[in-house]
């Protein structure tokens, strides 16, 4: 992997001056991913925060070619672009190596765009799909998604007098994607930039589809001070809330293993979306969440063990 010195010299594809919030985790994720290749890229983006805030006509924050089609179809859209590229390359009408990236939020990926993503993965397009997961529909005002964690309060599943916010656990999208047996699937976080850029490099290099699920803290939706985005991103890893792992050609590997996972209550205390969980009557929910995390780690360890090459 390139050194930090080399990385900082790479030209920015997403320029400053876009209109994402100060302290937005998604723009950091996007920039780190784009450091993963030196080839020209064509970027596809589903409707969502990154799309609306980077391409308000007549301006664009993208130095690369960019296409936004709709909410649920960035995977299909970029698969069309990539197919056009192959058609032209086959005929010798284009020689240049170009990389194709799709960015979707968790709403556009876990929920409404899951079919489009699954189809594109199964067809084997040479593309990198990146989910910037901020755990709710943030662009439209913090509505619950399939990625929203258990216990979080959102505007469509708020904590109220009788309901403690979201009662279900989030969907394990990374495993769902891995089950397509594509060459490369990984989960990453923005605090661990080296791990993330390394994963992006691998994703761009493989022949076929690659998928990165990146936890992208959103201070508006998660209710923490905007300057704490990277601290929160780190806490997600330290508590085991967001394990950093990869599945490379079917082999599962945990990339960063906290020596001693911090208790999940530290994660819960750090964000306003969980504040109702601190009440005595909701203690059992915190315990449920802790158990779910511990179980997930057991599952991950099992997958790593089961897929180790002999």
């Amino acid at each position, binding site marked *: 992997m390139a050194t930090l010195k080399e990385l900082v010299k790479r030209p920015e594809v997403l320029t400053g001056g876009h209109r994402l919030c100060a302290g937005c985790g998604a723009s950091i994720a996007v920039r780190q991913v784009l450091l993963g290749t030196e080839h020209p890229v064509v970027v596809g983006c589903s409707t969502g925060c990154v799309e609306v805030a980077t*391409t308000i006509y007549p301006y664009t924050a993208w130095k690369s*070619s960019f296409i936004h*089609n709709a909410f649920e179809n960035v995977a299909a859209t970029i698969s069309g672009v990539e197919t056009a590229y192959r058609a032209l390359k086959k005929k010798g009408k284009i020689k240049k190596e170009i990389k194709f990236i799709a960015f979707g939020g968790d709403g556009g990926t876990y929920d409404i765009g899951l079919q489009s993503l699954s189809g594109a993965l199964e067809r084997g397009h040479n593309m990198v799909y990146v989910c910037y997961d901020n755990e709710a529909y943030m662009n439209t005002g913090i509505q619950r998604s399939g990625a929203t964690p258990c216990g979080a309060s959102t505007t469509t599943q708020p904590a109220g007098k009788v309901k403690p916010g979201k009662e279900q656990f989030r969907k394990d999208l990374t495993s769902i994607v891995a089950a397509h047996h594509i060459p490369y699937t990984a989960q990453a976080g923005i605090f661990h930039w080296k791990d993330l850029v390394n994963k992006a490099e691998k994703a761009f290099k493989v022949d076929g589809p690659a998928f990165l699920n990146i936890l992208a803290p959103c201070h508006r939706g998660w209710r923490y001070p905007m300057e704490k985005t990277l601290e929160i991103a780190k806490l997600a890893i330290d508590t085991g809330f967001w394990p950093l792992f990869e599945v490379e050609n079917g082999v599962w590997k945990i990339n960063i293993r906290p020596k001693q996972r911090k208790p999940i209550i530290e994660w819960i205390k750090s964000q306003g979306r969980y504040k109702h969980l601190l009440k005595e009557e909701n203690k059992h929910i915190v315990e449920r969440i802790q158990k779910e995390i511990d179980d997930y780690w057991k599952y991950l360890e099992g997958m790593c063990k089961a897929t180790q090459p002999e």
Partner: protein
Amino acid sequence: MKDKLALTGNEAVAHAMRQINPDVLAAYPITPQTEIVMAFSRFVADGVVDTEMVPVESEHSAMSACVGASASGVRTMTATCSQGLALMWEIVYIASSLRLPIVMPVVNRALSAPINIHCDHSDSMGARDSGWIQIYCENGQEAYESTILAVRIAEEEKILLPVMVCLDGFITSHAVERIQLLEDKVVKDWVSERKTKYSLLDVENPLTYGPLHLQDYYFESKRQEAEAMRNAYSAIPKVVDKFEKLTGKRYDYLEEYKMDGAELAVLCLSSTYGTAKTAVDRLRAKGVKAGMVKLRFFRPFPAKEVVNALSKAKAVAILDRSDTFSNQGGPVFNEIRSAFYEKKDKPFIINHIYGLGGRDINVEDIEKVYTDLEEILKQKKVETLVNYLGVRE
């Protein structure tokens, strides 16, 4: 010219696509369009074409992939019908708004519910305001030629709009006709290569497709789209002239049959025109002054041509193979009635909705329409504006 081949309408369309040899085809199978995708897939499998196929998991993804491919500057096609068109609806609008010249055969089939696989025009008529050009074909020969014609219309620089080539499900798509194919080279030269100034793959000159337009720009963007359809109205006849030089066939906005001296006229789209011509012949033999008009392009709507043609008659019936459920009749009727508003001395104009879900329309049904028109002329008034033809009530 090659010999005529016995082909179904779908096979004829697939042959048109083979000769066009698009760079990318993204499609999903649906009855009665499936045969087009199957036949074309065979051409791909045998290396007859060098098209890259995207075998998508839904029509929504078919149109989404077409948008991505067409925005990358390559010639892009798909085909669908009915529920498939309904599923891709959201992206159908985006394709035209991004000014992407995609060509899509639509094998007209009824919309659910109740589920039905047979012909009516509810699917494409529902998409009449999506900004696509729409051509309605009478038979397999027309479907074949219209598909080839459509490529040049869509990609004409003054137009740059996608085109639906509509043929009647089963009636045209599955009936075997003797089809006269053009020479492969003739079609190859006619379509040549797509030229575009706006490709996502031109990475030295990056561009942004599909940015957010707010209150300050959205309206201008839509106004330009309206202008593109106006341009299409004036530019299509020029493409049609060139096509005539190639094929000897005229693909005018509409076609007339025995309209000279006609007092009673019926206008319809697609395969019904063939049946209707027989009815006109029978009536003429009996001394009834009957005539017939076939509307070929519904978008852009050729208002002037339609008014001119139908003004020759004193009473006119518009046949619609779909309903708008507005209590005001079918979509073709509404458009034509509106077009006549400025006209003095206009004929009586009534509507017959027929053939939904593949209900057969025969010569006697159409003769009945002329009987209705005769009665109106006799009474000098219209009793029932919107009639349902051939249904149990």
